[in-house]
């Protein structure tokens, strides 16, 4: 059952529209700071663009995808009309209003603080209020997912929650809780200063608050992709999910261990001591577990599909896969990028190796590869898979879809590999220009140029994606049939501890309190480390 089509389509269209706009900014940034362009005469424009690009790509775009997909999952997998559709629209409009409210001061140069905020830099209060509205809109979605699940559970006592909904709700709870860190930072620290009620701020404390959000938000971005791996890919290529239980364990692990590890973002910070840095580092290692489990289960599921199609031999089955199917192509590319990105991630999380690449262009290269690459390519796949069911129209541009995915994959490799490399050479991030005539910087010029070329390939792919969606919207009407998620090879009969969340939420909150409570309390009680706010754009 997919009744709320307009609602889901509205989320997807808004998501992909803002994505397209931010992509143009991304390509512009790449060009401006590369040797292909002379120094930008007013660097301030670069930081406006960077704030807009980061805010949209980090907060607005993935949140809308998760929400739209979440509503579809709730209706389809529970086979139950969405409860609270009016509220869902309210959440959507809050995001629209919030995004516009945030982007106006950014465009005017009154909030060039970048999406990480980092006080004591302080921009226009409307920028932060806009971000808060986006988060509040998404919290409505979190509540609705919970309400819908509970209504279904009441009607189906004891039945295992369908895997897509189980994962979706886990993701929503994770987001609900992880957003609290930045929300506390905004409400307790930044907004009072932005409104002029207070004039000083503790930068160390705000970095710790932000790290609470900054890590697990990554897993929120990743949730739709993992849900698609487990519940769309096997069906789309004619196979089954190898293990339903392992899938549930993976999602629960994300819920529990994604949170209490965020202080790995403060390894290089002076305001956190060795003890908590090490604890967070050790917990960070744990979060690799659900990904390792997922890689195994998905590879096994894909192999099952190949063997069902007559594939043979230890590796010969790979040839039997439906390579002309865009979903197959997307998941293969996604896994390759996940592999490279994951290897890079092991370096970032390492207590010792981190210092060689901390805050260099390696980091921007890394998260574009994982987030823009492995994750976003599956957002494309989700849209391609759902679109005929949302629009009631045929989707016939298979060739264009394959081309689009190839371009995104190739573009991502061309963009991010040299991006990593200049990071190793020590190129700092977030700079409007670099002096490539300096003999110490000159060796980086070629790599940056390559990245910029990759950026244009990505831009072409992103625009092609939007064209494909638009064309499908105008295609002839065609009944797409019932939308289904993948079936499990061995469907679950009873899933005792893996059917509800109370225990896991308690663990998530408990671990956050043990891993964050003391450092936050200690920093909050300190009075002599605050600095006066530095207002951005105050004197144009």
């Amino acid at each position: 059952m997919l009744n709320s089509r307009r609602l889901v389509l509205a989320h997807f269209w808004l998501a992909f529209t803002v994505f397209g706009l931010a992509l143009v900014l991304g390509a512009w940034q790449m060009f401006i700071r590369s040797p292909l362009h002379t120094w930008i005469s007013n660097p301030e424009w670069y930081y406006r663009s960077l704030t807009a690009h980061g805010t949209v790509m980090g907060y607005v775009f993935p949140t809308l995808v998760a929400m739209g997909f979440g509503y579809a999952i709730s209706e389809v997998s529970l086979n139950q009309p969405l409860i609270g559709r009016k509220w869902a629209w309210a959440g959507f409009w809050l995001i629209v209003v919030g995004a516009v409210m945030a982007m106006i001061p950014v465009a005017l140069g009154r909030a060039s603080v970048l999406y990480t905020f980092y006080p004591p830099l302080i921009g226009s209060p409307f920028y932060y209020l806009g971000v808060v509205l986006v988060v509040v809109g998404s919290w409505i979605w979190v509540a609705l997912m919970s309400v819908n699940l509970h209504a279904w559970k009441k009607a189906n006592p004891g039945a295992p929650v369908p895997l897509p909904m189980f994962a979706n709700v886990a993701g929503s709870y994770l987001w609900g809780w992880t957003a609290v860190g930045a929300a506390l930072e905004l409400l307790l620290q930044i907004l009072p200063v932005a409104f002029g009620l207070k004039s000083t701020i503790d930068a160390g404390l705000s970095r710790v608050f932000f790290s609470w959000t900054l890590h697990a938000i990554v897993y929120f971005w990743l949730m739709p992709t993992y849900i698609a791996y487990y519940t769309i890919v096997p069906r789309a290529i004619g196979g089954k999910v190898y293990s339903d239980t392992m899938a549930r364990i993976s999602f629960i692990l994300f819920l529990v261990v994604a949170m209490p590890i965020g202080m790995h973002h403060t390894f290089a910070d002076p305001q956190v001591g060795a003890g908590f840095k090490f604890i967070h580092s050790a917990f960070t290692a744990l979060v690799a577990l659900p990904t390792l489990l997922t890689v195994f289960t998905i590879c096994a599921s894909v192999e099952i599909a190949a063997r069902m199609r007559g594939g043979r031999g230890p590796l010969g089955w790979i040839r039997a896969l439906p390579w002309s199917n865009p979903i197959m192509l997307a998941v293969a590319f996604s896994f390759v990028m996940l592999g490279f990105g994951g290897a890079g991630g092991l370096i970032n999380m390492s207590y010792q190796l981190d210092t060689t690449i901390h805050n260099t262009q390696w980091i921007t290269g890394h998260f574009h590869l994982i987030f823009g690459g492995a994750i976003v390519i599956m957002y494309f796949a989700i849209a391609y898979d759902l679109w005929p069911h949302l629009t009631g129209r045929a989707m016939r541009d298979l060739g264009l879809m394959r081309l689009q995915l190839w371009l995104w994959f190739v573009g991502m490799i061309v963009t991010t590999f040299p991006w990593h490399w200049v990071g190793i050479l020590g190129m700092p991030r977030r700079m409007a220009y670099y002096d490539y005539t300096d003999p110490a910087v000159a060796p980086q010029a070629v790599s940056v140029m390559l990245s910029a070329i990759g950026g244009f390939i990505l831009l072409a792919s992103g625009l092609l994606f939007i064209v494909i969606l638009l064309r499908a919207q105008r295609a002839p009407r065609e009944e797409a049939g019932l939308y289904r998620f993948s079936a499990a090879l061995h469907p679950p009969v009873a899933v005792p501890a893996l059917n509800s969340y109370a225990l896991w939420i308690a663990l998530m909150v408990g671990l956050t309190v043990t891993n964050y409570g003391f450092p936050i309390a200690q920093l909050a009680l300190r009075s002599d480390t605050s600095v006066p706010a530095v207002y951005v754009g105050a004197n144009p």
Partner: protein
Amino acid sequence: MTTQDHDVEEARVAERVERRWATLSIAIIVVLAGAAAFAGIHQATMPQGRVETIQPQIIHLSGEFTEANLGSAAEPDGSVTVRAVGQQYSFTPQCMVVPADTPVVFRATSPDVVHGFLIQGTNINTMLVPGYVSEIPARFKQPGEHLMPCQEFCGVGHEGMWAKVKVVDRTEFLTMSSKNRRVTCVE
């Protein structure tokens, strides 16, 4: 064998394979965390362990980070301490001198916003957060020059915030430091 039996048997095999993989995954993770702990205990490069605070608004007026005290100081035990301040949008001193093959400690802080402290070609890389002192032990193998950019966005002048670190021969450094209490290479 009935299809049902066959199914049950298959499910059991699937579970066994899966359990093996899960065990292997956990082993990989334990080895990784263990390696980090081992390297930590044996004093490989380590993130800063101790939290040291400083009142950011008065660092120019008194104490360790007054202007006259910035630069490299030869310590009685033969090591060198380099004190620096990062502010919008420069480092003081703009050019730092250190001797090669000598234990060096960088101590730095910021009076205004968050800055970064990264010496290219080394693994010296930390944050300067107002209110806190960053301390990094280091040792440079060879004489040479390194660029030192600020690696965190600190405002519209961030792209211009670069300093230099000059590594000189130990004897050359000692001559310099016999003439000046604090050594820099600012011209």
